[in-house]
C-alpha cells in the first residue's frame, strides 16, 4: 500500500547534485589490537551494506576487542533543504541520527550525530563516530541513518513541526555481521511413548522478528515411534522410503508454518504488510523465501491452497534438480 506523508520529507530528489547533494561515505571500522596498534578493517565499497566482520578480519574478536565505527555524511548544498516550500524553515535545524539494533545482541538505541545542518550554501560534512565496547556485540548489528528535525523556531504548513520528527527514510543502512548466522530446518527429537511420529510445535510470538529456530518453531520427531528409525536412517540419503517420509513431513510443516504466519500477519496488519519488513533470519523472512521460491499461493488463504501450491512448487524443483 503506498505511504502518504503528512509533511514534506527528504527524498531522492533532494539527494541529487542539483539539489541538496546528499552523500553517505563508506563506513570505516577500526580496533586497537593487543599491541596497542590501531587496525583498520578493509571495507569494500560493494559490500558496505553488509560488512561481515567475522570474514574480513579474523584477528578481531567481539569478546576481546572494542570496535570504532566512523562514517561521514556530506551535504553539498544544505540551503536546498530550507525555506517555506522545502523541508523546514531557515531558522530551524536538521539532524542526522543512527538507529542501531540487534535482535541477537538484544539491544536498540538511537544516537544523534553531534553536528546539525543549518541553512547555508556552504557544503557541510557531518561525522558519525560510535564506540562499541568489547563483549557487547553478537549476531548481526543493524545501523540505519536518517534525517530528523533537530530544532524548531518557525513552522509552516506541510512541514514537520515537532523536534525529533523523522524527515526521511533511511539514507544509509548497513549490517555488521559479528557471528555467522546459518539456518537449518528446526527439527528436534523427543521421546513420547504412544505419541505420534511427529508434531509441529509453535512457540513464536512475532513472526517479523522471532528467529527461524527451535526457539520459535520445531518439528518434533518422536524417538519412541516405531517408524522413527526409518526416518533417522534416511538422514544424508538421497532416496528411499524414509527419505520420502521425511520430505513429506517437512512439506506439511512448511505449509502449516506458511499458513499460520500469513494468517497472523493478515490479522495484525490487514493487507498493508509485505515480506520486506521481515528481520534477517526471522520466520517471516523464511516464509517469504519459500513463497517466492515455490510460488506458494497465499492470496486466497486456505491451508489446502497453500499446501497444494507448495507441493507443486517442490515437485517442479525436484524434477529440475
Amino acid at each position, binding site marked *: 500500500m503506498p505511504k502518504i506523508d503528512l509533511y514534506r520529507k527528504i527524498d531522492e530528489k533532494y539527494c541529487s547534485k542539483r539539489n541538496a547533494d546528499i552523500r553517505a561515505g563508506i563506513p570505516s571500522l577500526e580496533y586497537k589490537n593487543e599491541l596497542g596498534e590501531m587496525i583498520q578493517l578493509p571495507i569494500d565499497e560493494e559490500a558496505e551494506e553488509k560488512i561481515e566482520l567475522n570474514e574480513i578480519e579474523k584477528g578481531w574478536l567481539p569478546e576481546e576487542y572494542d570496535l570504532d565505527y566512523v562514517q561521514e555524511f556530506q551535504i553539498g548544498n544544505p540551503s536546498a533543504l530550507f525555506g517555506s516550500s522545502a523541508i523546514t524553515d531557515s531558522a530551524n535545524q536538521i539532524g542526522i541520527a543512527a538507529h542501531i539494533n540487534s535482535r541477537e545482541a538484544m539491544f536498540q538505541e538511537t544516537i544523534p550525530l553531534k553536528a546539525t545542518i543549518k541553512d547555508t550554501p556552504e557544503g557541510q560534512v557531518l561525522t558519525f563516530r560510535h564506540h562499541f565496547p568489547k*563483549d557487547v556485540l553478537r549476531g548481526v548489528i543493524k545501523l540505519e541513518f536518517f534525517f530528523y528535525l533537530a530544532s524548531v523556531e518557525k513552522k509552516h504548513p506541510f512541514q514537520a513541526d515537532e523536534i525529533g520528527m523523522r524527515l526521511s527514510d533511511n539514507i544509509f543502512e548497513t549490517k555488521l555481521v559479528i557471528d555467522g548466522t546459518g539456518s537449518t530446518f528446526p527439527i*528436534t527429537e523427543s521421546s513420547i511413548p504412544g505419541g505420534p511420529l511427529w508434531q509441529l510445535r509453535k512457540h513464536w510470538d512475532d513472526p517479523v522478528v522471532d528467529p527461524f529456530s*527451535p526457539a520459535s518453531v520445531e518439528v518434533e520427531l518422536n524417538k519412541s515411534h516405531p517408524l522413527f528409525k526409518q526416518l533417522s536412517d534416511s538422514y544424508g540419503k538421497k532416496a528411499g522410503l524414509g527419505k520420502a517420509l521425511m520430505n513429506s513431513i517437512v512439506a506439511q510443516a512448511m505449509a502449516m508454518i506458511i499458513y499460520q504466519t500469513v494468517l497472523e500477519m493478515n490479522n495484525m496488519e490487514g493487507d498493508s504488510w509485505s515480506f520486506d519488513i521481515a528481520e534477517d533470519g526471522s520466520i517471516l523472512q523464511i516464509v517469504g523465501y519459500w513463497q517466492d521460491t515455490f510460488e506458494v499461493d497465499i492470496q486466497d488463504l486456505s491451508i489446502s491452497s497453500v499446501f497444494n501450491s507448495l507441493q507443486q512448487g517442490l515437485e517442479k524443483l525436484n524434477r529440475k534438480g
Partner: protein
Amino acid sequence: MCKMSIRWNDVNYGQAQAKNDYERLIVKDQNVVPIGFEDDPQAAEWEALRKQLIDARDEVFEEHGFDTAEKLDYDFDVAYGFKLHEILNENVGFNNREASNNDFWNWLSVRVIPDVVHSRWGDNPDHYFKISRRTWLKVIWWYIHICWDGSEEATYELIKNNTTDTIQGLIERPGIGYYVDVYHEIMKKYKDYQDRNLFRRVMKLNTARLMTTSPELVEGGIEAYVEDLFKKASGENK
C-alpha cells in the same frame, strides 16, 4: 567469593542438546538431580559457579523464609535475580554478549542449576530452554539488568511492588532488541502508578510509537517521551 575465568564462547549448547539433557534429569522427592559436567572441559569452572549459585539460593531461602512458602513467586524472582546478576557480572566477567547468548542460558538452566529452576517452575521445559524468551534465569537477569538503578537497594525500591506480570510485560517481548534506557525510564515512572492495566497500555503504546518515533530525539529526550506515554496511556491530557 573467588573470581573465576570461564570461556563463554566455548558454550555451544543448542536446543536439541538441551532437550536431550533435560530428558536425562531425574526428579527425586520433588528435587532435580543435575547430570554433572564430566563431559565438559570446563567442568571445574562450572562446579565452582554451581557452588556459588547454590549457596546464593540457600542464602535467599534463609533470608526470606522461602522454605515455608507454598509456591515460589515474584519475591523469589527478584531476590534470586539480584544474586544471579551479582555473581555473573562481578565474579565471572559476564557481559551483554554472554547475556544474549541463548546457548549459555540453556546450559545454565539444564546443566548448572536445574534444581534451582525446578524449585520455581517444576518440570515445565519452557522456562529451562524451550522458549528462549521465557528461559527463567535469562528473564530474571535481564529484568534486574534493565531495572538496575545504581545499587541493589535503589533497584529494589523501584521494583518491589511489581508482579510476575510486570516481568512478563517488560522482558518477554524483546522484539528487535531491548530499548534499555527507555525501559528503565518506564520502570522508574511506573513506580508511582502500580496499575497492571496501565502498565500493559504503556508497553503497547510504546511498541506502536517506536515505529515512528525515536525517544532520544524528541524534545526533553527519553524522560519526556516516557512521561508522555504515561499521560496518554492513563488518559490524562497534556
